[in-house]
Every structure is written in C-alpha cells, then in structure tokens.
C-alpha cells in the first residue's frame, strides 16, 4: 500500500474497491503501518478508492478504535461521492475527521 510518513502521521492510499473480499488485506496492511513506532495519526487518502460498502466502514472504524486506544486519531480525505454517501450514512462523520 502506498504511504507516506511525516513525524507522527502516516498517510495511506487505499485504492480500488473496499468490500468484504478486499477488507482482510487492507486491514492487515493498515495494521502494519500503524504498528510502526511513534505513529499517532492515520490519514486515509481515498482518492483512488472506487467503491466502498459497510465492510469498509468496519475496517475504518476498527483502525479508529486501535488508534484511539493509544491516544491517537484517524482522518479521511478525498472520498468520491459513492464512498462519501456510505461514510455519512453510517454516522462516521461524528467520529472520524474528514480533511
């Protein structure tokens, strides 16, 4: 997964379709990135995410819980309209910052 580290923030580009089929892989890759020492903030850049359903909501919320437990945070940016509709409908706007 393409990513960039700046101080305590890691920005990851999640690409393609995030559904139950791809969730396992995406989850594993994101967990490896946030396991790096000193990572306090995860930013998900979704500009190349073409589709997401509720399985994707589960993946994002799961990473949010992990980060929160260690006093960190998660933010998302560049959602396409379909992804944004699923995101908003699930009430994620209340818990996860959009940049």
């Amino acid at each position: 997964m393409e990513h960039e580290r700046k101080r305590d923030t890691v920005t990851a580009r999640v690409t393609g379709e995030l559904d139950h089929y791809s969730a396992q892989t995406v989850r594993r890759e994101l967990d490896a990135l946030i396991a790096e020492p000193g990572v306090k903030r995860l930013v998900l850049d979704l500009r190349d995410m073409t589709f997401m359903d509720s399985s994707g909501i589960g993946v994002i919320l799961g990473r949010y819980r992990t980060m929160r437990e260690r006093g960190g945070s998660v933010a998302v940016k560049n959602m396409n309209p379909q992804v944004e509709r699923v995101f908003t409908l699930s009430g994620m706007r209340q818990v996860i910052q959009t940049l």
Partner: protein
Amino acid sequence: MEIINQMQLEFLSLPENEGFARVAVSAFAVQLNPTLDVLADLKTAVSEAVTNAIVHGYENEIGRVMVGAALRDDGVLEVSVTDTGKGIADIPRAMQPFFTTQPEKERSGMGFSVMQTFMDRVAVESAPGQGTTVRMEKRLREK
C-alpha cells in the same frame, strides 16, 4: 406493470463473487440509462445483500447464492438476493442500525441501513434454518 426483461445468476458463496454480483446487476440495469448516482446506489445495495448471504447466511460453509433482477415497464428494477443458509429469527431487530451478530469480525450493523437508504423499497423474508431472501426495488428512470 409488466416485466420487460429478466435475469438470474447463481454462484457459490465466495467473497470473490461479491464484486461480480454487483457489477452484473449494474450492467443489466444500464439498458434503462440510469444516472451514475443511481447505478452506484444499486451496486452498493446489491453488495450489502450478497455479502450478508455469504458472511451470515453461510457463515462457515459454502452454499449457493441466487441473484435475480427484473425490469418493469414503469422504469423500476426489482432485485432479489437469496441464500438457503441459516436464516434470521428476528427480522426487525436484524434491520436496526448498528445491530450485528459479528462485532468480533469488525461488522458494524450498517448493511440493512445502506440498503434501505439507497433503494426505494427493501423487504426481507427469512426463516431460521431455511434461508433468506432480500427483495429490493429501485426506480431507474422517471415515468
């Protein structure tokens, strides 16, 4: 109202088929020239119902998932997703936002809410031990 076109798919309950199913239904719907937003809604709702059949209906086994779609002469698409898996005992409870029987698998209980928001109508028929059919309708073009 009359049915002017109809299709039926049957596939094994493998996660690989989630993308196939939603793309196939959306490709079938294209003949009525819906907007891209309408197609995206349809794809998302089909993905939810098919994923539920795979992860809940056939939790630890491989079964068959049936997806049907029918186009009506009034511009409405009817979609059905059927499994013959474990079924749902309490349907109204299952459809509540945030209700999930798989929190440990990072499920958030939003699937039915997505279907209800993105489609015009969602109806669930289910019986424990017999399986589940989700019937949905979406208007693809104005009358």
